[in-house]
C-alpha cells in the first residue's frame, strides 16, 4: 500500500523540525512586537509634537512603510546594507530591523489615534473633581487609551506574525522554510507538499486565532 503524504510528517523528527521552525517565527515576531510597542510609544508621542518638522519626518516615515513592500525592505537591508556599508547582518537581525521599522510606524500611528480620540472634556471633568495631573492620566486618560488601543495593537501583532513568513527569502529557516526542506527531501511522495503546507497553515492558525479572539473579546467588552 502506498504511503499517504501525511505520514511524512511523522517520519523521524520531521514534526519537531516544523515546531522548531515555528519557534523561529514566533521568536522573531515577539521580539519585533516588543520593540515596536516600545518605539511605537515614542513615535506616537513624536507624531503629536507641535513642531512642523517633526510632524513631517513622522509622516514621511509612515508613508514609506506603507508604500514599500516589506520584502523590498528586507532585501534592501539584508543585501543592500551588506554591500553599501559592509555590514554583515544575518537574516534574523535584518528581519528584526525591517519589521521593527514597520511595526514602530504602524504602532505609533495607532497610539497617536488612541490618544487623540479621548475628548478634551474627559480631561476637564477629571480635573474638575480635584485630581492632580498625574491622577488624571492614571485613572482616566491612560485606561481609556489602552482600551481603544489594545484590540488594534493585537490585530497588528497578528499581521506581524504572518508577515514573518517573508524572511525565508533572506535565508532565515523559519517554519515555512523548514516545510520546504521537508518537501524537498520527500519529493517522491506526490502529496507531501499538500500535507506539509496544510500543517503549516494549521500552525499559523493555532498561533493567530487566539489573538484574534482576544481582540474581538476586548472590543466587545470595552465597546
Amino acid at each position, binding site marked *: 500500500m502506498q504511503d499517504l503524504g501525511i505520514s511524512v510528517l511523522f517520519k523521524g523528527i520531521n514534526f519537531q523540525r516544523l515546531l522548531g521552525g515555528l519557534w523561529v517565527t514566533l521568536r522573531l515576531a515577539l521580539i519585533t512586537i516588543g520593540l515596536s510597542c516600545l518605539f511605537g510609544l515614542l513615535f506616537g508621542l513624536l507624531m503629536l509634537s507641535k513642531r512642523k518638522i517633526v510632524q513631517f519626518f513622522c509622516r514621511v516615515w509612515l508613508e514609506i512603510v506603507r508604500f514599500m513592500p516589506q520584502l523590498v525592505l528586507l532585501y534592501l537591508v539584508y543585501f543592500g546594507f551588506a554591500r553599501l556599508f559592509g555590514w554583515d547582518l544575518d537574516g534574523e537581525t535584518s528581519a528584526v530591523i525591517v519589521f521593527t521599522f514597520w511595526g514602530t510606524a504602524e504602532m505609533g500611528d495607532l497610539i497617536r489615534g488612541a490618544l487623540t480620540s479621548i*475628548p478634551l*472634556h*474627559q480631561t*476637564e*471633568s*477629571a*480635573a*474638575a*473633581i*480635584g*485630581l*492632580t*495631573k498625574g*491622577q488624571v492620566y492614571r*485613572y*482616566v486618560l491612560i*485606561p*481609556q487609551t489602552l*482600551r481603544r488601543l489594545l484590540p488594534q495593537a493585537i490585530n497588528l501583532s497578528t499581521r506581524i506574525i504572518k508577515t514573518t513568513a517573508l524572511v525565508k527569502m533572506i535565508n532565515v529557516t523559519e517554519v515555512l522554510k523548514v516545510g520546504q526542506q521537508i518537501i524537498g527531501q520527500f519529493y517522491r511522495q506526490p502529496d507531501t507538499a499538500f500535507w506539509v503546507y496544510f500543517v503549516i497553515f494549521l500552525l499559523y492558525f493555532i498561533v493567530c486565532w487566539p489573538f484574534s479572539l482576544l481582540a474581538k473579546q476586548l472590543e466587545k467588552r*470595552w465597546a
Partner: protein
Amino acid sequence: MSDTILQVNDIHKSFDGTGVLRGVSLEIREGEVVVIVGPSGCGKSTLLRCINGLETIDKGEIWLRDEKISGRAKDFHVVRQKIGMVFQSYDLFPHMKVMDNLLLGPTKALGKPRQEVEQEALQMLERVGLKEKAHVYPRTLSGGQKQRVALVRAMLMHPEILLLDEITAALDPEMVSEVLNVVIDLARGGMTMAIVTHEMRFAEAVADRVLFLEEGVVLEEGTPEAFFHAPATERAQRFLQSFTYASKRGKTEVQPKNTFGD
C-alpha cells in the same frame, strides 16, 4: 449676614485678541444661587471656566472665601476640590461603572475611605432616583440619567460652590426637567451655585439673583422677578423676547408652562 463664598473682581479674558470677558465682577454668598443668562457667545461659559481655572484670566482677581485663587498655577487641583463643576457634554468616565465614577474624586483626590463614601454615594443616588444604577456602565444610561450622576459626582466632593455650565443643553427636551429638578432640590438644601442656562423658566424658579451678560460685560443684575418681568435694559428685553412666540392668532404670547419648583 452670610459669608461671601466667591468674589470675582473685574476679570478680563480674551482669545486671540477677541475680548470674551471685559471686566466682569460678581459676588456669591453662602447658600445663594446665581443664574447667569445671555446670548450665545456672551462669555457665560468662559466665566465659569475661569472660576474653575480651566482658563487663565488676563486681568482681575478671583477669590474663594479668603483665598485668592486666580493667578495660581501650582496645585490648582486643591482649589478644584472645593469647586464642583458639571458640564454640558456627558462627562462621566465611560470605562468606570457609575459607583466608581462617584468614588474616584472622594477616594483619590480627598483620600477618604472607600466604604464611607460608598454609603453616602448610595444615599445620594437614591435621592436622585438612580440607586439601582450604581453598578452599571454609563453607556447604558440616558442623557438625563448621566447628568444626574454627574451632579452626584460633583456633590460628593462637598464643594463650597457648584458651577453648572448648560448642563441640559445637550439633552432631549423630555429629560431636561428630571435633571433640573435635582438642581432645584440642591438649591433648597442650601447649596451655593452659579448656573449658566438657557432654560428661562428654570432660571426664574431657582435663582436668588440673575445676571445678564452680553459681550463680556454684566448688563443687568437683579432678582428673578425684576429681571424676567420688568427687565431694565432694552438688550435684556430683546433677549427675553426671543424665548416667546407670537401666537398664530396674533393676540396673546405663548409661553411654556413653568414646571419647576413652586
